[in-house]
């Protein structure tokens, strides 16, 4: 949860924790990047205006540290340009403040995380299949003794 306003950060953290997630918070871009280097995160909620960096720039920066993370931009400046910019830079969602229907917001997060998990499982299966077929191929190529 990345936002410079504590009054936004803390209640949201608690809401997510009640849902059973483990939540870290950051009050600016630098802190967020620092966290992402040492920890693994499934999802980031990013305020579009941070004191040191634009939220959309943070998207690009964190693509390197946590590539597969789901990224949702939270904004108080709803505009089409902002939304396009966010999506182009790899945002998975774009939400305008204030989020009044928190239940469906949580539902959306759940869906995104589920998709992430599914795609991970899919990759795992693919990797397993690849390993299996490779092994078989190697075994076939092995000169018969």
């Amino acid at each position: 949860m990345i936002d410079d306003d504590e009054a936004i950060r803390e209640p949201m953290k608690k809401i997510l924790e009640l849902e059973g997630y483990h939540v870290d918070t950051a009050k600016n871009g630098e802190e967020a990047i620092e966290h992402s280097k040492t920890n693994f995160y499934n999802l980031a909620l990013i305020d579009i205006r941070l004191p040191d960096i634009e939220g959309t720039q943070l998207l690009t920066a964190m693509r390197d540290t946590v590539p597969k993370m789901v990224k949702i931009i939270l904004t108080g400046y709803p505009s089409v340009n902002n939304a396009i910019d966010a999506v182009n830079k790899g945002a998975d969602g774009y939400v305008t403040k204030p989020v009044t229907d928190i239940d469906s917001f949580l539902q959306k997060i759940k869906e995104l995380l589920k998709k992430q998990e599914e795609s991970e499982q899919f990759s795992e299966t693919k990797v397993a299949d690849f390993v299996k077929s490779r092994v078989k191929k190697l075994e076939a190529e092995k000169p018969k003794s």
Partner: protein
Amino acid sequence: MLLILSALLFYYGFTQFQYYLASDVQSALFWMRVSCFWYLLVAFDVTFALVYANLFTKSRRVPLSILLYAPAIILSLYEGFAVPYQPSLEPWGWDYNYTGVFSYISLSWVVIAAAAFLTILGTKYWRAKGIEERTGAKYLFFGALIPVIMGVTASIIPTSFIQLPDLTVPGAALGFLLFGYGVFKHGSYMLTANVTAEDVVYTMADALMLVNSNSEIVQANKAACDLLEYTHAELIGKRIDTFTPDSTLVDALKRSNASAIETNFKKKSGQNIPVFVSESVIMTKPGNRIGYALISRDITDRKRLEKQLTDAQRMAAIGEAAALVGHDLRNPLQATTSTLYLAKKMLTNGNCDEAEEAVRLLDGLNDQVRYMDKIVSDLQDYARPIADEFTETNLPELIGEAILNVNVPPTVEININQDSFPTTKVNPTLLKRVLVNLILNAVQAMPNGGKLTIAINRTEQFIAIAVQDTGIGISNENVQRIFNPFFTTKAQGQGLGLAVCKRLVEAQGGQITVKSELGKGSTFKITLPTRKIGRES
């Protein structure tokens, strides 16, 4: 003048002509009496010369007129109704003869008038500078000389000695033509010759008042009377501050040599009008000031336009900022919705500990509501026109009240420095808002505590209030923009606080400035003009 002169000349010429050609004694006598007002023509000739020679000034107008026209009218009436004429028929027409005391009085008056007439125009001719003025003066001098010679010839030389008709009228007609030629052909300088400094002062559009060193009005022109709606007599002798709502003008007179100030005048109807007064000191010799010349101009229209302009600028800024303010409201709204959601969740769980936590969260919402209220009030403050209501205010008390309005943490030490306990005329509501804003900023700039110093200094002309903190300071780049609306470095805040301060201070005729050094702290200084020297207690 030439028109009046020609009318008088025509009257005299016509009556004389009728008299010459009269068919009998009765008729000749009648026309002779009708022509009696020729004295006025002579008097008017002299008036013309006086005006032309710049001697018929406003202050001399009445005595000179009496001197000229009173005898002229008396002589005319006497000649018209009481003189025992004895008309006689001469070869060229009717003529007359009379002797006695009246003829000598009449003759003396005419000789004196003619002498004055010639002397004035002759001197003018003698002293004329420049070819154009000289030529004009020459025509006028000879225009006067011809009828005078004719008149003197006819009056002085006895008819028994030389038999000649009275040629004064043809002579005057010729003189009149020369007058006209001189004035119209070479009279471009006549404007400067005719218009006296008094005329300029009297007719100028700006109000001019002469004020002596006791601030009493000793002279005022028409525009000044019109401006204040008083008659000339009502203005003279009154102190100038009778007509001002405060002592700004008199104070300005006391201290300066020559300057211009904006102040207000109070009209007779009680209405206050904004005026621009430029004053110059009148001295008889260096160092000896005897009074002041005040030129005042009504600047109601300018003030109105200035106000319209600043209002328009402000509204434009508000328009641009609507989106920004919208964003600023979204953050506390987000905090509110999240908190409400969380509290509801906790309360429905029915757990006692969680219920307490939920109540604590809901209490915290007050901060969000207060913050949103501040955003809206700041914007309103910025958009609202300011009324100028000044009251005598005790500044240290006002500062104390302002400090009470701010939640100052115990880590911040407050000092108030003052020379005395000055009261001054300010708008206490506005000044308090400014001080609250500045103190709040100072406290926020010192998250780890520090020293807040508020100093009041008073000079004769200004009251200065400095709010100094030992906080984080402001970078040079930001100092430039710090009073711009919607400029902020805070996470929470939409950058109207200092813009509002600036506006409120300027509305009271003051200034706000800032000095700051990163890491050392900032000093905001408010300078307000002293409206009245207050009592010190």
